[in-house]
């Protein structure tokens, strides 16, 4: 198990390889369809929101206010990443992201951006909302709550030992591509294609 702690530098990210199991400690921002579309279309981010060398997490968490009026994340697993494929590569470049967390992997454009700009794709365990929520220590803030609604808002989260697997590294390798090729070969045999 590799420990990855903020600041997430290019060097640390480049050292990661396919299949590495990693625990992340630091700040991550959630962002899904509305946020990606907005940023990609040139929408402005609030001045206090700096995503350089940061991590975007494809997630629409369930967040409630506790008795003291503080935000509390009650469930926070990843959502399917491929929906952000049209935007992700450009956003990695534009914002200087160091990692994307999601599920299901992404396509060629994102893979190329990871290689060029030193970024990596982490796969979280899809559906493991409670395990992952227990690794979120604090909600530091929320952006675009009014505009996008709660699941689509950009939540700024402090995580500790957040468990993920490297499935696309910054050297052009993708576990998703490998598994797709292997399983397609078996499939072709099974259906006599």
């Amino acid at each position: 198990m590799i420990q990855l702690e903020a600041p997430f530098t290019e060097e640390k990210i480049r050292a990661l390889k396919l299949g590495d199991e990693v625990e992340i400690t630091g700040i991550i921002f959630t962002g899904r369809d509305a946020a990606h579309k907005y940023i990609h279309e040139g929408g402005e981010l609030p001045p206090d929101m700096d995503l350089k060398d940061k991590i975007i997490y494809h997630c629409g968490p369930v967040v409630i206010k506790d008795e003291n009026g503080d935000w509390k994340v009650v469930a926070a697993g990843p959502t399917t990443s491929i929906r952000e494929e049209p935007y992700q590569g450009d956003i990695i470049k534009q914002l200087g992201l160091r990692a994307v967390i999601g599920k299901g992997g992404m396509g060629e454009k994102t893979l190329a951006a990871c290689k060029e700009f030193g970024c990596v794709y982490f796969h979280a365990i899809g559906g493991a909302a409670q395990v992952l929520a227990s690794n979120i220590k604090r909600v530091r803030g929320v952006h675009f709550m009014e505009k996008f609604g709660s699941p689509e808002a950009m939540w700024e989260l402090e995580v500790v030992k957040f468990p993920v697997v490297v499935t696309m590294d910054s050297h052009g390798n993708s576990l998703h591509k490998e598994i797709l090729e292997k399983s397609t070969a078996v499939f072709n045999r099974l259906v006599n294609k």
Partner: protein
Amino acid sequence: MGMLLCNLDSSLLELVRRTSTELPADVRNVIHQAIQREQQDSIAQNALNIIERNIQLAQERSLPLCQDTGSCLFYIDCPVGLDQMMFAEKAREAVKEATRRGYLRQNSVDSLTGKNSGTNIGIGMPVFHFHQHNSPEIKVRMMLKGGGSENMGQQYSLPMVSLKANRDLEGCRKVILDAVLNAQGKGCGPGILGVCIGGDRATGFEHSKEQLLRKLDDTNPIPELAELESTILKQANELGIGPMGFGGKTTLFGVKIGAMNRLPACYFVSVSYMCWAFRRQGIQLSEDGSVQNWLY
């Protein structure tokens, strides 16, 4: 009608809570078996271990197993004379309350304006299927089906030239495996398939979802379909897609197939994909509306 159902509100709320926060025993069993089967310390096994820990945590904390609490599907078996409008209204209230308490995420969006209703109530949501039967019993089953898994559903129209899939069970086998191949990495595998052979474009999908109400360890009463189910389960696992698409021995936990009559000109195979977070539960109600027993 003779039924008072005064405890219905709390029974329905408890049904929603349990459906979202606990997995039924048959699902927990197949997950546990899969852990034993995967290679020691592989990413696949570690993923399944996290999944098992997640199931435990959700139950202990009484919080959603998965943050995508999906769409709420209700299947109600009821006697003639049950006031279905009243019943649906009570179920909507239960869903609203469950949402307020955080058992369900706000998951109902107006397709034209993009506005979230915030309550999980909206046009066509939740979904109700009432079935009348010749018995005084009322059974309420609930399933929560997340968007990631729903997106992996597919409907094939046979024959399909690219797969050389004809209008027979062999053709069905090919297209169902195709659906598994295409779902890789996306629907939070290992998954479970509900399939309908036949029907029309609407009833086919509806029936495929109803197949998911069957227990995972049951046996299909129709021998040809029982055989097709076990063949597909075995072959899907040979694909090596594994948990989360990380590679591994468990790609599917189960396959449930039903058949409906079709038009001579149509031959649909409808596949509903369910993720490992297979949230379904059910209650049988007693006369006063309290829970007599749990169905899964």
